[in-house]
């Protein structure tokens, strides 16, 4: 009986402010979509980190006869120098940190280069001699790459020692700043959504002030008076957050799984439906919670006795 009355009051309020309710739906929809996108980006970053940090190697580049940087003096690294580096890698001081390593000759480097840059005119001008021979080292713990760099940097015939994670960090920082932008936009939109919900509820309360006055006069409990308004806000926000959830699922399905995965192929891992299924409930709960809190705060002014 009372439940039905509360629901009919809420439905009446929704009907009376259709335009405001639609704007609440749209604003929560957009803001929560940003929140969801930011969450997906963060998940993507941590997924890529997990994937790439395991595969990232430390490269020890040996001199070629055109190099002048590092410890090079326009002379090809000699076999002794290469052996000395290899001996150092095998030595007790470095071996515990190294999972495995392999040596890449000019020919192997050239083959890889041809494969990677087959589309580029650069490939035509490059000869095997120009490419460095190198040791490709997989660390037991990729965070300890510094040890290898410090240790081998000053060896004769070593041009450079590079932690390949340095390249990845750039990618991650781009993705990170994209996700922070999304979070910033989401926060702004959420503020707008909260204020809009509060305004809508206040408007709704104002249009029902006669009923509210009589309810208070005859002794309706505060909970009874405020529940329809809170339901009104939560209902509008729920529609918005369900739409946001649907758009997150659509983004994952059509853009990530449908487009990115086929375009990028197997070069990296991507977030998928498993992550979307975590994001959607978070969005729905967040939307409902924000609406309940802001509607409750907006209506409390009408409950003072």
């Amino acid at each position: 009986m009372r439940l039905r009355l509360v629901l009919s009051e809420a439905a009446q309020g929704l009907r009376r402010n259709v335009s405001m309710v639609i704007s609440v739906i749209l604003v929560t929809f957009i803001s929560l979509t940003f929140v969801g996108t930011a969450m997906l980006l963060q998940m993507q970053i941590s997924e890529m980190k997990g994937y790439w940090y395991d595969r990232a190697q430390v490269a020890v580049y040996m001199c070629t006869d055109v190099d002048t940087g590092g410890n090079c003096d326009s002379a090809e690294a000699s076999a002794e120098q290469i052996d000395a580096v290899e001996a150092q890698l095998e030595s007790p001081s470095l071996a515990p940190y190294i999972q495995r390593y392999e040596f890449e000759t000019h020919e192997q480097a050239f083959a890889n280069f041809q494969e990677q840059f087959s589309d580029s005119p650069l490939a035509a001008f490059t000869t095997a001699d120009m490419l460095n021979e190198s040791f490709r080292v997989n660390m037991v713990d990729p965070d300890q790459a510094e040890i290898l760099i410090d240790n081998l940097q000053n060896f004769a015939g070593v041009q450079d020692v590079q932690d390949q994670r340095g390249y990845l960090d750039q990618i991650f920082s781009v993705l990170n700043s994209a996700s922070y932008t999304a979070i910033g936009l989401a926060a702004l939109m959420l503020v707008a959504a909260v204020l809009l919900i509060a305004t809508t509820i206040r408007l709704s309360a104002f249009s029902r002030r006669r009923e509210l006055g009589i309810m208070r006069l005859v002794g309706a409990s505060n909970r009874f008076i405020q529940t329809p308004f809170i339901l009104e806000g939560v209902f509008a926000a729920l529609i918005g957050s369900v739409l946001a959830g649907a758009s997150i699922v659509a983004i994952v399905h059509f853009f990530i799984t449908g487009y990115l995965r086929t375009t990028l192929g197997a070069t990296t891992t991507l977030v998928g439906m498993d992550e979307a299924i975590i994001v959607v409930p978070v969005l729905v709960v967040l939307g409902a919670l924000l609406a309940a809190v802001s509607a409750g705060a907006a209506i409390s002014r009408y409950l003072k006795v």
Partner: protein
Amino acid sequence: MIRFDAVTKSYAGNSRPALNSVSLEILKGEFVFLVGASGSGKSSFLRLVLKEEKPSKGQIHVLGHQLNTLPSRKVPYFRRNLGVVFQDFRLLPQKTVFDNVAFTLQVIGKSRGFIQEAVPDTLKMVGLSGKSGRFPHELSGGEQQRVAIARAIVNKPAIMLADEPTGNLDPATSAGIMGLLERINLGGTTVIMATHDVGIVDQMQRRVIELISGQVVRDEREGGYQTQSIPLPILPPFGNTGQFRLPGATS
């Protein structure tokens, strides 16, 4: 039933208190007229009984509750024991007569069965049994006030507060309303009525409490409207200018 102990009520921005150290007691089953010029504190008195306002000083006891210490979450339950009627009826225009009266019971959570039984009974008592399907704008002023009274008494309150219930009605209609209030009073409900209507007060011969400038200047059993102040429009004593206030001020 209702006791005021040295109650003073001041509103912010007004140095003269609306009620000034008022002490009085109203017993169960009494019918009390509250008379006085506009701004004399009648409405403030009623609002204090309803706990719509807090007194600035003094203690108010209503129905065994000490209102100063009544927590606000209990105020709604306290108000279920009071029925209120206003000069402007305050009906809900989009609800029928039946629904206006039933609304009171719905919002305090009475069952459908109880409502189906209590509302027609109450409408019959106020003389509107054939008009339960009408809307307020289809009724005369007197009939609208009867709806408002039905709404106030449908929950069988111990106290009924009426703020100039006949203020918008012609004398004949007013007499009908007064007859209704008298019957409600005979049923055991304490009735407190603020009014300007000289004829009604003189005719009823009930307890009269007269306020001037927020002070009780007269409290007599079976009194008339006759006041101690000099008749209008000359200013009453105490330098009171309250009666020339615009409506909506502290009346």
